[in-house]
């Protein structure tokens, strides 16, 4: 029986890079548990021998010639960035130490 505790929800929220409130922890815990309860039926199906279908169309290794072609300019790519500097995306500090 699958039940997701608020602690597990907090762990998953961290993996998903999503801030959640205490109230959301409780609500998602109940709602995700109910969805997982619903899918219990397929979890119990004895189909270990059935190959998985990951894609509806059996195409693989679709290749193209490795040749230069025009792409978007830096200006176009950076135009919608929340912050940029010197032709680069700018973000807050990445390492734990204060600057």
């Amino acid at each position, binding site marked *: 029986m699958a039940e997701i505790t608020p602690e597990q929800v907090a762990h998953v929220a961290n993996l998903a890079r999503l*801030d959640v409130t205490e109230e959301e922890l409780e609500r*998602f815990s109940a709602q995700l548990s109910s*969805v997982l309860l619903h899918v219990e039926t397929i979890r119990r*199906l004895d189909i270990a021998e059935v190959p*998985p*279908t*990951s894609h509806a169309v059996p195409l693989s290794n679709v290749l193209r010639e490795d040749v230069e072609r025009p792409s978007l300019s830096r200006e176009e*790519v950076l135009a919608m960035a929340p912050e940029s500097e010197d032709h680069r995306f700018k973000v*807050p500090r990445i390492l734990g130490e204060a600057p």
Partner: protein
Amino acid sequence: MSPAPLSPAAATAGRVRRGEQRARAVVEEALEAIARREGELHCFNEVTAEAALGEADRVDALVAAGTDPGPLAGVPIALKDNLCTRGVATTCSSRILEGWLPPYDATVVSRVRAAGAVIVGKTNLDEFAMGSSTENSAFGPTRNPWDTTRVPGGSSGGSAAVVAAGGVPISLGSDTGGSVRQPASLCGVVGVKPTYGRVSRYGLVAFASSLDQIGPFATTVADAALLLEAISGHDPADSTSLDLPVPDLGRAIDAGVAGMRVGIVSDFLEGASPGIRHAVREAADALVAAGAAVEDVSVPTLLDGLDAYYLIAPAEASSNLSRYDGVRYGLRVGAPDVAQMNARTRAKGFGEEVKRRIMLGTYVLSAGYYDAYYGQAQRVRTLVVRAFEAAYERFDALLAPTTPGVAFRFGEKTADPLAMYLSDLYTIPSNLAGHPAMSVPFALGEDDLPVGVQVLAPALGEEAMFAVAAALESAAAPGSRGPVPAGAAVVGR
């Protein structure tokens, strides 16, 4: 049989190509029709009136110069707001992409323009196409033109409603688990999900990449065929796009259904409302009258598809939506370090349903659960494919309800995610298998609201599907399809 209904997009394109009507006049009329009801219905995130008139003038200039603008010459079209339009905001009805101007056009956008169509705006949807009612839009819901106290369905609710309201004759949506067919049924218009790979997904903002497919809305089967032909075909920019000729759907429609074998998916009838069950039975009778051989077929595994879908789609979504991190585009919420910036941006930018699916998808893909949930769901997907294959040994196409019920009221299913998910029960299997399916308005059901019946076909079986759809259209009940005459909507049926 009644004569095939007049196809407004085809008729308009014909007049514009022959120089009998100016595209500008057509587009002005559409913009007026949209403006009359937009305040009440909220079909659009943005109406691009000025750009549309400019495009119309370009079409008129081509005609004046003796150049054929294409099979959709001067036809106004609305686009779901998850299709990238260069320089025109593409929001997915999410705060996280509010105001984002794509630097390129989706392939379908270039193709409809190359066919002469005139884009009039971007339509409302459930945020990132996650939902079945358009209630999950960050910018407010769209209302059903048949009854404004009810939802238009979703996630392509705006695209379905604007066609049903007579604003435009054709529009585009995307269908991941029924997001074209379900709103088509609820709004009394034709809606098509093509075979996976028929239509390029380049520039469609990804939700669940192995299930997503762009498809047309129209008031008639012939107009839907015209639009599907215009957007189909190989695109090197989408590696899942099929390198196959575009089928001649007009010829398939003319060929009729005499001698075809059609199965009624009996398992899908059990959970449907009495009005919808009745409509499917009447549809079967109509096909028999048109010369098809029709019998019931049980395809029980299809119902396991819902569970597989609600593991696979969130899993793929959690991966696809990781790109909204406040770095390259869209919303950013400030924070002292980048990890907190990511988490706060996503918390503020995403709505509740999107968060729920990201959480569910992240959970089922996380260490220790991958095989029990995601792996098992992919095996169930194989069972669904096999179940369809068995049915298609005996039948050329299948007939089923599109939805379990008619359009529901606002708020009716928002408290219980599972109840909302169930409204896609009959549409999901085609996405899992990658098969084509379409909804055709056929009758009026409970509360005199429209009911679509669904035609399903094997992969690349669009010709058989359109032949069946056209036969059903000829036998549909009067008054069961859009456009709803302005002012005729009954509030609170």
